[in-house]
């Protein structure tokens, strides 16, 4: 192998080396996808199939998990079910075949909406504040600039449970416990540090000369910011927004400790989807699938900026 390596430059690996590297990486990728494939598959299994041994790879797909995810059901006697008018919808039939009737919708949809409202609300605020602050830090002489930037970053080093203790007390005083506003404010505060650091990096890359030229030609500083800098930073702002959205969407610790009903998001809700006799795994898997799909889409959209986002802008390509 070393003979081959000398024949070719190290810069361009040999075809054999490429093939071996490719095989190993693909093997890793496939193994790491197994848990996700299992989530997707379990969502379409019946509860019995989901816990059969050996685990079933081939099975008759069923929508029971998804029906259970969206509904609450009560168990009834066969005689009672027979006395009902014939089931109209396919999901009624499915539920009745298990000797149950649908009692009403589950809380999955309201929780999903909470996740969306809190996610988008906090993202909008964090990116709005972050863009302004990042521009301020990027372009002006601010006293104690490095200290302020470090303070903004250091807020990220607190364990969420440690932050949650005083926030819990403060929100109780202010009546913000279990409110969407409270969660939006909290997630904005957490995300704004990421937003400032990332956006400062993006804005630093826009040459100052553009604004200066615009200002010489008669723009005010604010006009130059709005009409010259913002369009140039649009990609960076979009990438930052997606990172903030993903954080808010995935956040669990604060949501668990500070919400219980009205403002509860999906992460503390999904693990507690219970069926008869414990967790209803097909329903949990169905909920997890619907929860993960937006993130999968965003990850693919973001792939060019991932590196920056996960290192607070410390590493750029």
């Amino acid at each position, binding site marked *: 192998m070393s003979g081959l390596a000398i024949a070719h430059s190290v810069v361009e690996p040999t075809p054999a080396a490429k093939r071996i590297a490719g095989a190993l*990486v693909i093997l890793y990728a496939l193994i790491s996808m197994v848990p996700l494939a299992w989530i997707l598959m379990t969502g379409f299994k019946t509860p019995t199939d989901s816990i059969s041994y050996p685990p079933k790879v081939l099975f008759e797909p069923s929508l029971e998990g998804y029906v259970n995810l969206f509904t609450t059901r009560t168990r009834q006697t066969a005689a009672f079910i027979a006395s009902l008018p014939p089931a109209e919808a396919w999901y009624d039939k499915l539920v009745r075949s298990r000797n149950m009737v649908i009692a009403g919708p589950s809380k999955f949809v309201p929780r999903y909406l909470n996740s969306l409202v809190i996610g988008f609300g906090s993202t909008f605020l964090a990116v709005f504040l972050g863009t302004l602050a990042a521009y301020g830090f990027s372009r002006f002489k601010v006293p104690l600039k490095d200290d302020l930037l470090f303070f903004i970053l250091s807020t990220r080093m607190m364990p969420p449970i440690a932050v949650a203790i005083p926030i819990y007390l403060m929100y109780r005083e202010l009546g913000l416990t279990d409110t969407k506003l409270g969660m939006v404010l909290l997630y904005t*505060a957490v995300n704004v540090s990421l937003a400032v650091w990332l956006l400062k990096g993006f804005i630093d890359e826009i040459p100052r000369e553009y604004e200066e030229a615009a200002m010489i030609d008669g723009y005010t500083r604010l006009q130059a910011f709005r009409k010259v800098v913002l369009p140039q930073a649009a990609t960076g702002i979009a990438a930052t927004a997606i990172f903030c959205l993903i954080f808010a969407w995935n956040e669990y610790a604060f949501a668990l400790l500070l919400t219980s009903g009205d403002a509860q998001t999906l992460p503390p809700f999904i693990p507690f989807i219970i069926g008869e006799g414990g967790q209803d795994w097909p329903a949990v898997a169905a909920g997890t699938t619907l929860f993960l799909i937006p993130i999968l889409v965003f990850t693919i959209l973001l792939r060019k900026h991932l590196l920056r986002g996960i290192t607070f802008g410390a590493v750029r390509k």
Partner: protein
Amino acid sequence: MLDSRPIGTLIDRAAAQTPSPIAVRVRGLSDRAIAWAFIAPTIILLLAINLFPLIWTIRLSFSNYRVNRPNVPLKWLGIAHYTDILGDADVWNGMQVTARFVLATITIETLLGFALAYLIDRKFRGHGFWTTVILIPMMLSPAVVGNFWTFLYQPQTGLFNYVVSFFTGIDPSSFQMIGDVSLAPWSIVIVDVWMWTPYVMLICLAGLRSIPKDIYEAAEVDRASPWRQFWSITVPMVLPFVMLAVLFRGIENFKMFDMVNLLTNGGPGSTTELASITLKREAFEKWTTSYSSAFAIILFVTIFGLANIYVKALNRVKQK
């Protein structure tokens, strides 16, 4: 680097609109005012939601306050909580479990992540696509996905036990990942490695790609062996990136809560009870608010202190 054409047209339009640059000075806000107007809202928000609560936590940590006993008269205890914590067996257990967890995950993730990055950097066909696939787990919610791992780990019927018995022949009902004292710490390490190896990989990959190719060409001319090139060029050049990845993973895993809370909730016994889980028990199950405030401060100072020492070391490596 950037396309300047739209700017040109903008500037032209602006020039047509405002005849004299002097008018701008009069109409516009001063730069100083703008700087403060732009930065102040963020700082105020962080003061209100981060610094103020932190100060409140410090204040509470010197008192006897408990959320569930609001009528007990407030007393100041000085540093009593801090000295108690240093002698609290639960706290020490939490710190040790955390240290072991951080060490194990960082070691495995660094080795595996670097190896993956090195392989991806061989630039085989389709490496871009497979890189994106590998990155997916790290973007997912540790809580929601961690919760699903309890299903994969289920005794007897879980997929994990099946796969292990399929490849090793061990009886699948002879071991439980979450229920067993010696295996439970590994169960959380496995999930963390699955989620976060891609993170280290991505940063290492950036490091590998930052190495100028002509260094290798020069080494070729000097007939340095590939082994020698790897240890004298690749490793030192990637090291600052690896150290950065270790810093971020270290801080994150020191704070780890979500995945472990749902997967093992610290059990069995207290074998996987990380510091954050101990803190949750104290603050939100036993409701020892002031005591847990002191613990929270100790945790923060520990993370902050370790991170600062580490960053100094990192800067020294970078300067070389």
